[in-house]
């Protein structure tokens, strides 16, 4: 095992609470009607290409990517399109979605290889792999949902030296990536090989936090058992520290390189891909299966049966909550994602999409904002900031709408990890104001660049 590494600056260590770590992944049955939102990725929503009454097969394209940063949407089930309407998604806004009345039997699209056997032989070349990833609508499944094919297209003049797999899963509570690593180890490793081939590199590093020792040992064992097959793949244990899975922090921890301010990770010769996305790429490239399902962790201290479910997109979240034992009494907060980066939702029946990594339920005691007091200039937020920013200052400047100063103080480098707010003894909602300032400053910068 390699020595444990970490990123040098800031970070916090929240209670891990990986309650569902030992719950095997269960296939979740689909309801009669599924609601597939067309905007499932960062960037422009897909354009609908089906209409009411059309019969769609499982895996059939129903929405085409519109623009550069956008991803295709496929039908997660076989059935008839009931309507193309709007649905309130996890953001609380009405978004366009395709409603599909499902048939009981899955009828797959042509070309899908229905097998559970491991396919190790990678037939496609680099360009074909990227095209396949694009065609299958694969996005970053850690939650940010950035289209993966855009990441893999290394710009001219740059060279990708490393494929880094983000298996840190530094968010407390979430266990979907961990379970996938344990249950689909070989498929995942072939996925890493595919990624390495896609960007023409022979180095792949899997970064995992040391609290997932089981996964580290299993991966090490598998790689050692099949030396020639998984040549070049390395497992890098990382210290259990939030936000170890932040793209920039992960690169710094694994390679010691720092992504320059305002630049993309490719500047350091690294391409970072999430575990779930890697597995999805395996399925897309080897089995011709578009991205139509993912693992969702349903968890919380008051949840009766926390679990990991394999969910087809479009399944309403309240069914998952029901399967985990229902809404416990006194629940006040339903969070889409983990407790640090996730956002509370206003409805429980929002459809699960590509970015739904977890559904976390919190009680009043756990979730309630504690009484806010004045800033005492202790500087803990600045110590905790993994990007080396000064959150107390950014908070003040954003509050004053002083967006010239927020820009010179690098508000745009904020990764919105929430470490500052977590550590603040005065319970100031620092991140709220920083997010506000970041949105406003970003708009000003974009307007200026357009001139």
């Amino acid at each position: 095992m390699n020595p444990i590494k970490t990123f040098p600056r800031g970070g916090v260590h929240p209670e891990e609470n990986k309650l569902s770590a030992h719950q095997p992944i269960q296939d979740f049955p689909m309801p009669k009607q599924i609601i597939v939102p067309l905007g499932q990725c960062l960037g422009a929503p897909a354009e609908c290409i089906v209409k009411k009454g059309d019969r769609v097969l499982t895996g059939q394209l129903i929405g085409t990517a519109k623009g550069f940063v956008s991803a295709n949407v496929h039908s997660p089930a076989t059935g008839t399109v009931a309507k193309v309407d709007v649905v309130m998604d996890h953001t609380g806004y009405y978004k366009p979605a395709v409603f599909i009345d499902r048939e009981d039997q899955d009828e797959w699209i042509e070309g899908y290889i229905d097998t559970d056997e491991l396919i190790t032989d990678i037939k496609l070349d680099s360009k074909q792999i990227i095209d396949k990833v694009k065609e299958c609508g694969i996005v970053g499944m850690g939650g940010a949902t950035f289209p993966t094919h855009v990441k893999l297209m290394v710009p001219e003049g740059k060279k990708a030296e490393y494929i880094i797999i983000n298996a840190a899963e530094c968010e407390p509570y979430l266990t979907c990536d961990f379970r996938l690593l344990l249950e689909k180890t070989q498929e995942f490793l072939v996925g890493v090989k595919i990624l390495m081939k896609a960007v023409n590199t022979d180095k792949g590093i899997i970064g995992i936090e040391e609290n997932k020792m089981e996964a580290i040992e299993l991966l090490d064992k598998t790689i050692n058992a099949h030396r020639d097959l998984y040549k070049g793949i390395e497992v890098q244990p990382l210290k259990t520290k939030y936000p170890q899975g932040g793209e920039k922090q992960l690169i710094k921890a694994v390679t010691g390189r720092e992504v320059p301010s305002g630049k993309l990770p490719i500047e350091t010769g690294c391409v970072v891909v999430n575990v779930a996305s890697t597995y999805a790429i395996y399925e897309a490239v080897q089995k011709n299966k578009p991205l139509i399902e993912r693992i969702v962790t349903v968890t919380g201290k008051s949840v009766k049966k926390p679990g990991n479910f394999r969910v087809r997109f479009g399944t309403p979240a309240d069914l998952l909550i029901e399967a985990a034992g229902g809404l416990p009494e006194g629940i006040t907060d339903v969070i889409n994602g983990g407790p640090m980066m996730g956002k509370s939702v206003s409805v429980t029946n929002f459809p699960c999409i590509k970015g739904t990594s977890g559904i976390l339920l919190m009680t009043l005691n756990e979730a309630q904002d504690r009484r806010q007091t004045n800033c005492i200039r202790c500087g803990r937020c600045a110590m905790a900031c993994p990007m080396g920013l000064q959150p107390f200052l950014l908070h003040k400047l954003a509050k004053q709408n002083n967006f010239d100063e927020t820009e010179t103080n690098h508000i745009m480098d904020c990764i919105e990890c929430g470490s500052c707010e977590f550590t603040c003894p005065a319970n100031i909602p620092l991140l709220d104001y920083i997010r506000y300032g970041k949105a406003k400053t970003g708009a000003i910068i974009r307007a200026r660049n357009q001139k």
Partner: protein
Amino acid sequence: MSNTLFISLAVLGILGGVLAVVLYFVAQKFKVEENPLIDEAEACLPGANCGGCGFAGCRALAEACVKQAAEKGNIDGLACPGTDMGKVAAVLGLTAAAFEPKIAVVRCNGSCQNSPSKVHYEGADICAFANTLYAGEGGCSKGCLGLGDCVKKCNFDAIHIDKETGLPVVDPDKCVGCGVCAKNCPRGIIEVRPRGKKDRRVYVCCVNTDKGALVVKNCSVGCIGCQKCLKECPFEAIEMRGNLAYIDPAKCKACGKCVKVCPRGSIHAINFPAPKPETPALQGAEPAVKPQPKPEPVEVKTEVKPENTVTA
């Protein structure tokens, strides 16, 4: 001791005197010649520097007026929202278009009663931020968030949040119609409209362009786009914007017919005489919440907090 005091006073006094003389001559030498009309025009303006005219302040508007008067012989297109430009025009020896006083109008009546809270928000009290997070406590994605960005930006102390309704209320005596609140509303709810003849005005108190079914879900007084008002209006002053009726203030004659046919009470008539006892109460003062049938209880499975939460 007293000697030191005396000497320092004398030195400072003489120094001050000499510098004052120098400054006087320097000021004479480098005097900037300004058109005295600018000062006169500025005196006619309120001097609040609200920016509602589109210039950096009242003096900038006065300068622009004088400049345009000299170049084109008119001051068309230059207007302070709160003042009669006739006075400025008179100073410049011109005539201005008739003054039409304006007022900010809050086009949302989704109060705590009409659009009851389904979720509870805890977070930064900035509308622009809350707007990026969720639809609103009542669930209407177009409605007022009630965190008061408009209140914070108003230079005239003319808009306040009513604690009972949770909605901003415009003080008609203080509002000059500069439009700063309208610019700062992330949902474009506030509109600057003419005050109307005898201060009477009619407007649709809703900005939700969604389909009627979605509006009804979250609000008991939102416009559902039934078009009854459109058919009723004898002046063709009402147009449909998506599923929302909009009354064009330029065409509206404030007859009040649309108010009576609106099944949702979304159309507000301001400063109309009190209704006769037998007719249902349809008109009210601007901040008043219209009496509405109690909304259907919405099944709320959980009360959630639409704010990211950090747990220890």
